[in-house]
């Protein structure tokens, strides 16, 4: 059918470049905001799991189990098409998407943070306490900075996962890269070209974030070596 022209036709992709880039920006914004929220929430949940109060531990455990067990697509559909209709709240697609993504990632990150904190040698805490520092100061100044270094690589992985998962937000109509690609692919009837381009853009984002994480990790290690 389209054999009169060349096999791959990327003119349409090039001419819609600004729309695609805008979609890409929305995807990155959603993934970044969701990861930032997930880091805060994940840390809170991790601390609750390490708490001496049993009820906090139970809530945190249930949170982690729930959000690690449920698929993003199922939760997204439940929140956006189920919950929002049932309790009659007007939820914007981007808000529903970011919150859902953040909750799922917080479930994973809380486990990461917990194991990072537990990995700190107890001698460090004992030494801090022996020096006369308060429990809070020991935690903030001794445990957290060391735990942070440990969790940089898994945190980077989680960010990468959030970027990849953000493509699913297209099903509730968030105007991110995949949504725009779908619409343009239908408009020009060139799914191969547009989805290839979308795949490449995600690939670039993922590779850049992984590189960045590696650099950050190395910098933290050399800093600690110098001390």
């Amino acid at each position, binding site marked *: 059918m389209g054999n009169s022209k060349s096999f791959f036709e990327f003119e349409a992709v090039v001419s819609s470049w600004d729309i695609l880039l805008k979609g890409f920006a929305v995807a990155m914004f959603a993934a970044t905001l969701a990861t930032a929220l997930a880091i805060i929430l994940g840390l809170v949940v991790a601390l609750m799991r390490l708490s001496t109060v049993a009820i906090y531990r139970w809530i945190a455990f249930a949170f982690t*189990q*729930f959000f*690690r*067990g*449920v*698929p*993003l*697509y*199922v*939760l997204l*559909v*439940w929140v956006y*098409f*189920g*919950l929002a*209709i*049932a*309790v*009659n*709240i007007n939820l914007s697609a981007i808000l529903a998407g970011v919150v859902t993504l953040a909750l799922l990632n917080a479930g994973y990150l809380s486990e990461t943070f917990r194991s990072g904190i537990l990995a700190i040698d107890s001698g460090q805490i004992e030494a801090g306490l022996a020096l006369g520092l308060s429990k809070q100061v020991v935690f903030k100044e001794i445990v957290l900075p060391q735990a942070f270094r440990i969790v940089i690589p898994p945190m980077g992985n989680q960010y*990468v996962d959030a*970027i*990849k*998962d*953000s*493509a*699913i937000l*297209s*099903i509730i109509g968030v105007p991110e890269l*995949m949504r725009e*690609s*779908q619409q343009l*692919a239908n408009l020009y009837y060139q*799914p*191969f*070209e*547009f*989805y*290839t381009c*979308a*795949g490449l853009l*995600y*690939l670039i984002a*993922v*590779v850049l974030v992984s590189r960045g994480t590696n650099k950050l990790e190395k910098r933290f290690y050399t800093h600690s070596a110098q001390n």
Partner: protein
Amino acid sequence: MMSNSNYKFDWNVIEKYWPEILKGLIITIQISLAGMAFSILLGICLANGKLSNNLLIVRISSSITELFRSIPLFVLLFWIYYGFSLKFNFALTEFEAGVLALGITGGAYMAEVFRAGLLAVPIGQLEAAYAIGLSKMQSSMFIIFPQAIRIIIPPMVNIYIGLLKGATIVSVIGVSDMIYVARYVSLETFAPFELYSLVGIIFISLTLSISGFVYLLERKLGRSKVDG
């Protein structure tokens, strides 16, 4: 907030439609299992490629692994089902496209698991196997593989959980899985909350029981034996 909602909760729809939802679940499980089988095959090929003596094969396998791990499953699914099949006139059913997308993504993760598992078996085991006169084939089948499998199984089941969760998105290309059925039924009954809740609960119980199983398995197999 609930008071000014016009939504009428009707939990009877669950009683009426759960057999259909369950039918959808079976399709989800089928697609994820088929995707897993594909992942294992691809993972074995890529892991062997990464451990090859030929530098070119190592490079190619590593690049393929990186590429497949970096493309979102959702994009891959659309690329295969709408893009690739149209461009190359390669007719695929929705089910086949779903299996391919899951298999490719899972395979890239499996490659790492297999590689780590094979590398974790001490080299002395292989040397000992050669020394008592076993062939290369025999030593990998009877000496290396049984030891590597202990290390491989727990992360493998975790990858399966990932694929099971990933398999939920195939409804977007029209596979009649659980979500597809729930959406379809909720158009008739207008009870999306109840139906999607049911889907969510089924899913969570499924993934939690599998990960509980992994936890027990990890304790039973215990890495200590291989680590020495």
